[in-house]
Structures are given as C-alpha cells and as structure tokens.
C-alpha cells in the first residue's frame, strides 16, 4: 500500500514538474480553467490544453486609425492591440506585474554593461526572424530609435508618439559577439531600461520604402509614413494579418515562421471592434464573440456578466486609478490649508464602498504610482488625514487657517468660500455617485459644490483649460513607473491638470531619472509622491476594477492589468479547450 502511494506520489510529482516546464510564459504551472484562481495565480489561471485549430473572435473597445504605433497621430491602445500579434517583443509584463524577458527573441536576459554612460545589451536568438526569413537585427533597433526621436537629423517628420527613449539614445551598435548594445547619452539614465521594448517594425522593409533611411532623414520619414499607411504583410510575432478593415476588424492567422516556443493553435483569431459593452455581452451570449476585456467598467454590464452562467467573467483591479484633482489656480483653492481640509472631509472608504464596492472588493488607493501588490508600494498618505472623512479634523484645520464656519457657510475675511464647480465625465455611473457624495462631504464643512458634467466631446477642452475647480477622472499606469511622475506632476507638464507648480516636486521628479537602479528610482518616485501629497491637490481614490469576459471554450486567456493591451499579452497561447 505504502509502495503504491510512493509510486503515485512520484508520478504526480513527475506530472507536476512536466506541467511546470511546459507551462505558459510565466513559467508557472497550470491552475485550471476559470478565473477563480486569478487572485492567487494571476499568470496561470484559466489555463489548459488546446485543441488544434478553431477560430476565436475577440472584441476590442474602439477602432484604430493607422498601422504605425510609433507615430503620435494614430498611436492608441487599440492600435497596440491590432499589431500585438505581428510585432516582435523584447518582453512583457505578466499579470503579476513582473517583467518577463522574451525567451523567444532573446538568448539571455538583457544585461546592463555600463552605468555611465548607461548602456545595455541584447543577445538575439539566431532563429528570431521576420516572416520573410530576414533575421531580426541591429537595424531594426536603430529604425525603432530613429522613429521615436525629435532629432530632425535622424527623422525629418516621424511625428514620434514619445521621445523619452529616442531622444536619450546616443548609439545602437553590434558588438564583437553580435549582441546589440544600446548606449544612452552621457548624463541620461533610464531605470526602466530592462522593460523597454526597443524594436517594432522591420528595417529591411523600411529600406524598400525609404531607401537609405539610416542616413537620410527624409527617407526615414517616408518609411515611417509607409508603415503608418499600409496594412502589414510582414510579421515578427506569432501571427500574421490575413485581412483587415482598418478601425473595424482584423483577422490573424499563425505566422508559419514564428520562432517562439509556444505556437498558436488557432486557425484564425479575429479582432472585432464592438464599442458598446451591452452589445458585446449579447454577442458573447450568442456565440459570435469569444471574449473581451472592455476598457472601462460599466456596472450594469459587470452585474449582468457576473450573473450570466453561460460565460466566464472576472472583475479585478485594472491599470487605471481614479482621483480627485483640485485646480490650484482658483482664488480659494490656491490655499493649501483649504485644500487639505477639503480632502480631509472626503471619505474615500465610504466613496469606494458605495461605488465599486457594490461590485467587488476594493481598497483605497494610497499611492499615486504603485498598487498595493507592487514591491515599491509605500503608503503615501500614512499619517495624513486626507481621504479619511474626518469632518471634525477638517473643521479644526479650517479654523486654524482663519476660516469661519457659521450658518452652514464657510467664510474667510467675511467672504464666502466657493462655490466650486465639481466635474466628471457625463454618463459615468460611479463618478455620478461619487460627485453626490463629495457634494455632501463638502457641505458639512460649509462648502458648496456645483456639479457640472463634462460631455465626452468636451473632456479634452475641459482638462486642457483646467475648466474645473474639482474634477474626478482616471489615469492609467503600468509597472514601468519612471515616466509617470513627470507626466502627472511636473510644473510644466500639460497633464498636470491641477496646475500645481512646486519646485521641490520638480527637483524630486528629476531625481527619478538620475539612477539606473529601479529600486532607487522607485524610492525617488515615492519621495516625489509624498511631496505631491503635501501639496494636497491630487487625492487617489481607488484602483479601478476591470472586467474580462470569455466564452467557456477558450483557455489561456486571462486579464493582465500590467499591460496596456490587457488579455492580448499572450495571444499566441490562446486556444480552444481540448
């Protein structure tokens, strides 16, 4: 009996080890189909063996306008989703927030070879090739760099989507061992170097449409424009585009020359734009769709999906987070004491309980950049009363700052404080509830808030012109955090919608890019966050939950908050359940 147990035990151990070895890119073992295990096993939940063949249709929330995601015009999450299957990767963030360097493209983990000037190298696998058989090489890295720089001597008109990488690179070369070495300019540091995707489009195809792009900025611009205007017939990823109607739908088929370990088993993977979440859910019920990870959370759809036994659904913290911003250019709100008291009066836990808490478990967000699971998380608001809803304390703070509360009205020097205009995006059910709650909290300290919604077509104008006193909206972040502080808080940043200007914050932000060490950079980012918290003009509320829905026939599909393309991060693993 005991021997039998040992035999079975050994067998079970063997199976487990085999599963662990053959499991998906996270390298962990399967935790079965369904989303139940996603909380504990985010990289392996809903996994299983795949049938050969089959067709899946995945809904994406909006269309895309071009094919080149390196250009500002056209760059969007939706384009990233559309080209995910055909572009090679250096790696990706897994759903546990950890970076996975691509064993498909690289021989070894990228190595930092010099700290000043900062340089790192990639060793490419010999069989990493484009679909026409051309090896992926140094020119692909150079083309990517040129396409993302504002340096007109490299590209005349590339309309770069971002320049934080391209403008800091000094050179990209091939060393004697054949490894690709990226060297930054002296004094430039990028703590996120490991998680940078430094290749996108094929340089040899660029050469056909912009001959001599390496030395001719005009030719470089022509190649960039060509990639933008033409549907890709090339691939460096697991799939190829079979057919597409830009902005509407795309059909992917396996790339026969895909060099990765995990090969797609699907005959076809369709990406279809379905902007209405209600329609998406109905189509899923009707067997026309196999899944979706809608960009925003519609509480009605979430409830319907949860109650729908014919499909699988999961609600979990996503990449976005809600926050209140106060406009410090308002004559009253320029007083930090008043701002602090107002944010103290707001009860974030109560807001969360009455909004997203109705759908799933949510916690107050206590850090601007890192969620609670991040190794760099630090409670930025520890010891602060902001967000506690402590009305007595808020009143005390106001009184100490010379404000008087009488007859339900707050005054200073005989003048009534406010009223303030509170704004949020029209049609957003959770923000509507929040606005009414905030109105109530502020009313308790004698401040009147007039709610005025923002039409979707006016959101850009309202934020750009800071046409609000208080606004609630959302930001999206991923674990690569080092660019966010400058984007959110820098005095000159167009995204600093509260228009706070604080030299101490600017100095702290600059420190984030003064090191190549990610942990040290995270410390600097947290320091900057603490200073922002002291300025009391942005109050994080909650990491917004997001929904994923799939049919029961699909396996290896799971949400990924750490990637902008969410569930599509491992699309080569998707398949029909065996």
């Amino acid at each position, binding site marked *: 009996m005991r021997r039998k147990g040992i035999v079975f035990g050994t067998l079970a151990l063997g199976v487990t080890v085999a599963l662990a070895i053959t499991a998906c890119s996270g390298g962990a073992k399967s935790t079965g189909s369904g989303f139940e295990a996603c909380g504990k096993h985010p990289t392996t939940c809903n996994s299983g063996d795949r049938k050969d063949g089959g067709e899946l249709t995945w809904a994406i929330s909006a269309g895309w306008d071009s094919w080149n995601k390196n250009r500002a015009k*056209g760059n969007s999450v939706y384009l990233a989703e559309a080209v995910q299957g055909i572009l090679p990767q250096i790696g990706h963030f897994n759903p546990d927030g950890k970076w996975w360097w691509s064993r498909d493209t690289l021989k070894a983990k990228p190595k930092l070879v010099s700290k000043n000037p900062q340089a790192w190298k990639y060793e490419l696998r010999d069989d990493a090739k484009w679909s026409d058989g051309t090896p992926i090489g140094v020119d692909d890295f150079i083309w990517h760099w040129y396409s993302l720089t504002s340096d007109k001597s490299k590209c005349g008109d590339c309309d770069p989507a971002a320049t934080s990488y391209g403008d800091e690179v000094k050179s990209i070369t091939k060393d004697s061992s054949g490894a690709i070495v990226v060297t930054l300019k002296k004094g430039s540091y990028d703590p996120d170097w490991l998680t940078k995707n430094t290749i996108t489009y094929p340089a040899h195809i660029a050469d056909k449409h912009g001959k001599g792009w390496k030395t001719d900025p005009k030719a470089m611009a022509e190649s960039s424009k060509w990639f933008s205007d033409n549907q890709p017939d090339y691939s460096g990823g697991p799939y190829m585009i*079979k057919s597409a109607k830009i902005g509407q739908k795309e059909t992917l088929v396996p790339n026969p020359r895909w060099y990765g370990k995990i090969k797609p088993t699907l005959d076809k993977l369709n990406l279809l734009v379905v902007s209405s979440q209600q329609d998406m859910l109905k*189509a899923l019920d009707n067997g026309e769709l196999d899944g979706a990870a809608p960009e925003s959370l519609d509480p009605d759809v979430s409830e319907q999906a949860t109650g729908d036994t014919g499909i699988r659904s999961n609600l979990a913290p996503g990449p976005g987070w809600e926050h209140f911003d106060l406009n410090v250019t308002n004559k009253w709100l320029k007083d930090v004491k008043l701002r602090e008291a107002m944010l103290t009066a707001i009860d974030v836990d109560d807001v969360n309980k009455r909004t997203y808490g109705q759908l799933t478990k949510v916690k107050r967000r206590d850090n601007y950049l890192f969620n609670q699971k991040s190794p760099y998380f630090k409670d930025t608001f520890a010891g602060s009363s902001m967000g506690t809803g402590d009305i007595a304390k808020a009143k005390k703070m106001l009184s100490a700052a010379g404000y008087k509360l009488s007859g339900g009205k707050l005054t200073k020097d005989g003048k009534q404080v406010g009223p303030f205009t509170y704004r949020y995006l029209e049609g957003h059910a959770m923000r509507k509830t929040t606005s009414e709650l905030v109105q109530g909290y502020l009313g308790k300290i004698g401040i009147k808030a007039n709610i005025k919604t923002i039409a979707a077509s006016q959101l850009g104008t309202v934020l*750009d012109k800071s046409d609000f006193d208080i606004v609630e909206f959302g930001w999206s972040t991923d674990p690569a955090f080092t660019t966010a502080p400058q*984007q959110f808080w820098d005095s000159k940043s167009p*995204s600093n919608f509260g228009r706070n200007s604080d030299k101490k914050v600017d100095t702290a932000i600059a420190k984030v890019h003064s090191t190549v060490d990610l942990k040290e950079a995270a410390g600097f980012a947290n320091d900057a966050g603490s200073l922002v918290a002291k300025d009391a003009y942005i109050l994080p509320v909650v990491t917004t939950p997001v929904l994923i829905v799939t049919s029961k026939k699909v396996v290896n599909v799971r949400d990924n908050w750490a990637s902008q393309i969410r569930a599509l991060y491992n699309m080569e693993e998707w398949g029909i359940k065996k």
Partner: protein
Amino acid sequence: MFIYAIRRLLIAIPVLIAASMFSFLLVDLSSDPVADYKLQLASQSTNGEIPKGAVHEFAAHLYLDRSVPERYWLWLTGIGGRGDIGLLRGKFGPSILGDNNPIGAEISDRFMITFRLVLIATLAAIVIAIVTGVISAVKQYRRVDYALTFVGFLALAMPTFWIAALIKETGIWANQQAGTTIFYTIGATSPDTSDYSAMGKAGDIVGHLILPTLALMLHGYAAASRYQRAAMLEVLDSDYVRLARAKGVRNRTVMRRHALRTSLTPIATFAPLSIAAALSGAIIVERIFNWEGMGLYVLESIQKGDSFAVMAFLLVSGMLVIAANLVSDLLYGWLDPRIRYE
C-alpha cells in the same frame, strides 16, 4: 415633367446649402478635436511633454486653424486648400481619422452596406404592408382587422431602438433554443468570410441581415399598412367598384383588377419617401447591431468632431431624401393621370 424635375432639383440646391451650413456650424461648435488631440498626446507622453509642433500640425492638417466660415467655404469650394478639400472639386476634405480613412472611400464602402439594409427593409415593409393593409380593409371591423391594427399601432408606438433591442433578444433566444447561431447580432458579415463558399457567404449575409432588417422594417411597415388600409377602403367604397360588382364581376377580379390596382397609388408614392425615412432609422439600427454602415460612421464622426465626415454623410443622405421626394412626386403623376406638372 422634365422641366418640373429640373426646377425641383434647382430648388433643392439652396435647401442643401442652408442645411449644410447649419449642420457644419452645429458640428463645429459641439466639439474641439484639437483639445482632444492634446489630451491624447498628454496621456501618451512619457516625459510630460507634447511633441513640438504636433498639435499645430494636426490643426493645420484638418484646417482647424481657420475660422468656421473659412472652413465652410473651403469645404464647399476648396479655394485656399491643399487640394484635398472642396465639394465642387469632388473632395470631401481630410478626416480626423487620418489619411488611411479617406472620407470618400469610407462613404462609398459603407453606402452599399447601409443601402442593402435600407432597401431590403423598405421593400419588405411595403410588401407586408400591402398584404396586411388589404386584408384589414377587406375584413374591416372583424377580428383580423383589429389584430392587424393593434400590431400596426404597436409597431408605430415603439421607438426603433426599443424594437431593435427586443428583436435582438428574441434572436439570441431563438439561437439558444436551436443550439446554433442562425441569427447574428453584430456586424453586416462575419469578420472573415474569404474562405467561405459562395453559398456560405450568402448564408452569412442573410444571417446577419435578418434581425436588423426586421427592426428597421417594422416602423415603416406600420405606417404603410395604415395608408394601404385607408386607400383600399376608399376604393372599395367607390362607385366604379360598386358598378363592377353590380355588373356581376367576380369578387376576386373586382379586388385584383379594380380595387387593388387603384389603391396602390398612394403606397407607390409613399415607398420612395419611406426609403429616406429608413435611412434615418438605420443610424439607430446600425448602432445596435454594430453594422459598419453609414449610420455608425456618422455617429462615430459626431463623437470625434469629424466635421467633414459628418458633412459627407449629410450631403449623401440629403441628396437621397431630395431624390426620393422627387421620385415620389413624379411617380404620383405617372400613376394618376389626373395629376399634371406645371
């Protein structure tokens, strides 16, 4: 009649211009694509900066750096443009969606998708309306008349979006009962039908067409069936029908040759107009069934503040309405010799 038609078309030109001016103003005032683009760039920015010149370039590309009257004039004439705009030159202007989505190509691609839906829905509505209208009239104040009248008024009273949602639910329920997908609820076709056989492609189109067609035709059917019933009743009560009956002509012949033929005149003139009406209903139906037609295009264009795209839709649909009105008037004169054009 030819002169009458020309006169009508000439009168339509100032109507179209006035409508386009008003629409242009509304679309332009209701959104600010430049601010939206700035927000998009700000949210994409990794260093807190918007790429130099990007916003100006975007505005200049869409002529958004010019005043509203200037833009309208450009749209109409193309004078002062870069050669990519000017209705009189056959150019619809640049789209916010970029050069990969030229407005003219989008409209022509989507026109056939919408027209297919509208045409089939209208034809089905008219045919069913004629049959039910005639039955209602012949069986006036009997059970069948009351039942058809009830159905007609119900369809008239329910808004298209509500009917469409109900039909969609019913289609899904029917599929679940059948255990297979017969009726589709999104798109005009499946995402990729390139490897389907001819029969497979036809079946796919029909499967996608049924529910939206039903949703779109019900409203038109309800109105048309009331017309048909009234017309048939009027004819049945006329002297020449009574005379035919008095002469001993068989009832079937009276109905077919004398009554039905005459009673079709109002519905024949109503049909072109109902195509125009169905076009507006198609905007809602396409939105609900995710059809990549002109209706969905104009909705998305309005949301994005893509004024030249909205103008293109309004122009095409406006011309269709004018043409439908003209055809209706001409048809009336042709069917009824008493009508003379002056």
